[in-house]
């Protein structure tokens, strides 16, 4: 059938393939992407205010380390919405409705916080769970329409962003228990409804981030280890093959959107139930008919994290880190608007570079290995050719 030495050749080649693949492992490409983003960000800062660019850049790049508590605190909601978007994306669904689910989750948490009289230690848990249910409900609707009527989830969920937001604002304003018209925002939540703080001075960081990271890890396990994750990813990669294999596509769509909604809803709950460092105070919500930005930030987080739950944990922390550092650049005279631009550029270039990592990897490989030889091709090509060389079959492509 086959030459004897074919086998050994095969072995040797596969080592090379593995090496080639590892060469641009996702970690390295992520680091490179971030580095590239930072460099671009630095140029913008240089352009905006040359004299303080270095000092400002130092804050952006490293300032977050001096405010780790806040980095984690502000990462919590975007981590949840990022997980929400990323998880749905694994199934090939674009959950642009994270914002509405987030708002709905926040409202349910608020409702539980104000209306339910529960003992300390249970109240906040109940409120968090209520938030989860609220988001789940708001994720279910687009999922249901997608599965049963084949309505594109993007359209439904965008609409439900608005529907959710206006409903919540109406409900909040209509309740004198929840709404305080003199400050045009919600009243202060009772202490029992606030998530216990992690006790880091000068920061509101709380058990929300611990739960969020845990949830990220659980999602990772679900995706990698369970039959549900297997089906979900299969559907995302190739829904025809999933159908052929007898997977319940419609049910899975609904379940996925419900989970995605629940994740966003938890994000909203974690945000509103965060403990206040000021006695008697709490987080507040201002019903001003604006769609929650954290929902959309989740898209950037998911993109940067490559839709991988573990990646999303890091990308949420990274973005929060940049933002915290960015705020510090106020100290050297950068205006908040410039900082927003710089951060957006860093995130954009990082995400862009992540997507382009194959191309960039190749580019850098070429530059570095120029002397080695000129046998550079992209990895898949290489795999194809090598593979093809040692089998007796005919390629289809």
């Amino acid at each position, binding site marked *: 059938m086959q030459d004897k030495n074919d086998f050994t050749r095969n072995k040797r080649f596969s080592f090379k393939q*593995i090496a080639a693949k590892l060469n641009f492992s996702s970690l390295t490409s992520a680091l490179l992407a971030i580095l590239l983003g930072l460099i671009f960000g630095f140029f913008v800062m240089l352009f905006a205010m040359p004299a303080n660019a270095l000092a400002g850049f130092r804050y952006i790049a490293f300032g977050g380390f001096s405010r780790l508590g806040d980095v984690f605190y502000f990462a919590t909601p975007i981590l949840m919405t990022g997980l929400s978007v990323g998880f749905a994306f694994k199934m090939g669904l674009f959950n642009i409705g994270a914002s509405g689910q987030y708002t709905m989750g926040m409202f349910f948490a608020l409702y539980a916080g104000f209306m339910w009289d529960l003992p300390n230690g249970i109240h906040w848990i109940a409120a968090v769970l209520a938030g989860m249910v609220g988001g789940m409900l708001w994720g279910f609707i687009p999922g249901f329409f997608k599965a049963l009527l084949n309505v594109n989830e993007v359209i439904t969920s965008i609409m439900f962003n608005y529907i959710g937001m206006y409903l919540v604002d109406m409900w909040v304003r209509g309740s004198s228990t929840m709404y305080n018209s003199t400050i045009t925002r919600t009243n202060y939540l009772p202490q029992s409804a606030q998530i216990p703080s992690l006790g880091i001075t000068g920061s509101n960081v709380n058990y929300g981030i611990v739960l969020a990271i845990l949830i990220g890890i659980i999602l990772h396990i679900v995706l990698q*280890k369970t039959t549900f994750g297997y089906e979900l990813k299969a559907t995302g990669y190739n829904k025809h093959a999933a159908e052929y294999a007898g997977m319940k596509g419609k049910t899975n769509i609904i379940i996925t959107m419900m989970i995605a909604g629940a994740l966003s809803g938890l994000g909203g709950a974690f945000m509103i139930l965060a403990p206040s460092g000021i006695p008697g105070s709490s987080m507040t919500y201002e019903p001003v008919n604006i769609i929650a930005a954290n929902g959309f930030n989740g898209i950037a987080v998911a993109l940067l994290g490559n839709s991988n739950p573990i990646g999303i944990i890091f990308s949420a922390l990274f973005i929060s880190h940049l933002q915290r550092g960015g705020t510090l650049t106020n100290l050297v005279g950068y205006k908040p608007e410039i900082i927003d631009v710089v951060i957006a550029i860093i995130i954009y270039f990082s995400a862009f570079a992540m997507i382009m990592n194959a191309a960039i990897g190749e580019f850098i490989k070429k530059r570095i290995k120029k002397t080695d030889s000129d046998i550079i091709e992209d990895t898949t090509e290489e795999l*194809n050719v090598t593979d093809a060389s040692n089998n007796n*079959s*005919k390629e289809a492509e």
Partner: protein
Amino acid sequence: MEKYIIEMINITKVFPGIVANDNITLRLKKGEIHALLGENGAGKSTLMSVLFGLYQPDGGEIRKNGEVVHINNPNDANDLGIGMVHQHFKLVEIFTVLDNIILGVEPSKMGFIQKKEAREKVLKLSEKYGLKIDPDAVIEDITVGMQQRVEILKMLYRENEILIFDEPTAVLTPQEISELLQTMRNFANEGKSILFITHKLNEIMAVADRCTVLRKGKLVGTVDVKDTTKEELSRMMVGRDVSFRVEKKEKKPGEVVLSVRNLSVPSKTHKKDAVKNVSFDIRSGEIVCIAGIDGNGQTELVGAITGLEKASGGRIFLNGKDITKATIRKRSIEGISHIPEDRHKHGLVLDYKLEENLVLQRYWQPEFQSKGFIKFDAVRKYANKLIDKFDIRSGQGPITIARSMSGGNQQKAIIAREIDKKHDLLVAVQPTRGLDVGAIEYVHKQLVETRDAGKAVLLVSFELDEVMNVSDRILVMYEGEIVGDLDPKKVTVQELGLYMSGAKRDQLKEINDAG
């Protein structure tokens, strides 16, 4: 010394870990059809890509009419009069035929496209070479055969005189193939030179003047076709003798496994039923082949049996159980295995690892799953078993991403999965499409073994050789109906062709007594 229009001399092309072309010399005469034969991975496509400017060779040179030329990109190739019909067409799906043909070389005055001129030129070419097209049809609406004619017209429109055809017949029906071969002949007679990449020996014997054979990146030799035989060519290509006959014992039909009664299936493209009131039985221990020209309802029939499509009337029984309305999963459990027509669309999750693909039908069974968690060590073990048993080759074994595997091995993986799964009926749709002779031999052997193991096999094929050689019974489908129930031992290929084209039909014995 003869005049060559193109000479590729001592071409070497190295990819990491593999020498794709090792010192290969190919000379193309003016006005000849020169076949380039080789198994998958032999280096045919690489060599042609070098000629077309897609790759730069690491060694060797290319000459045109004796002069050394450098082809850095497809535009250079085009300037030298080299055109190529790719295996996968490079057409803009939403453009019309005419727009595609003139794409990139639009005749224009002051920035406005002069379509009228172009149309006249295209229609003239189309008439001259008998390449029937509708210039205003949109690509995504026309048949694959017509798309190919568009690709050919693209080359003619650019007045190329060296035409490369990369596996042009892989996607065509028998009729279209013979038309294409005739067209190629006409081109050659007109003085155009043709490079014809293929692995189908019949076509080479039918049309080529000379044939260059490659194996594993090396040149085996160039022969005159009239002085050689199919057997010799295949020996050159594979490096050993290949049997073109399928060895099999007499069939021993047993119980009825699948019975289809008055089945109708709606069409997705038109309002009429694609399958009309069809009834037949398949027994264990026999291979029943659905023959027919593509588009006569085979896909819909198989869809209804496997559950991918809904029947509009009639019933389907598997081992006596009515499965007409059963889910795909249920049918799979009841014993249907399915080698799908399109292995990339249905058969595999290309971004999954090989091992994950091997349990695509079974991941939920207790063997591989406990409490919702997949038992990955069991999966790995099972994958290794199948890899050994079915000789599936890949770069990294069970953890190879399916996408990076060759077509033949992807097909082997699907076959392994479907045959190893507990089943009574194997539905195999074009299981050898796009495979080379070695792999085809392998697939046929597997089908026969499955039959001999007492399973029923339903084979759908458009290849007459395969229909005649592999099947125990032939059902011919024409316009959604079964027009013949034939015994391959008693029917000739010519006769079969008449059934397939609708020129002949039997009054089949009625089996409408739905059970």
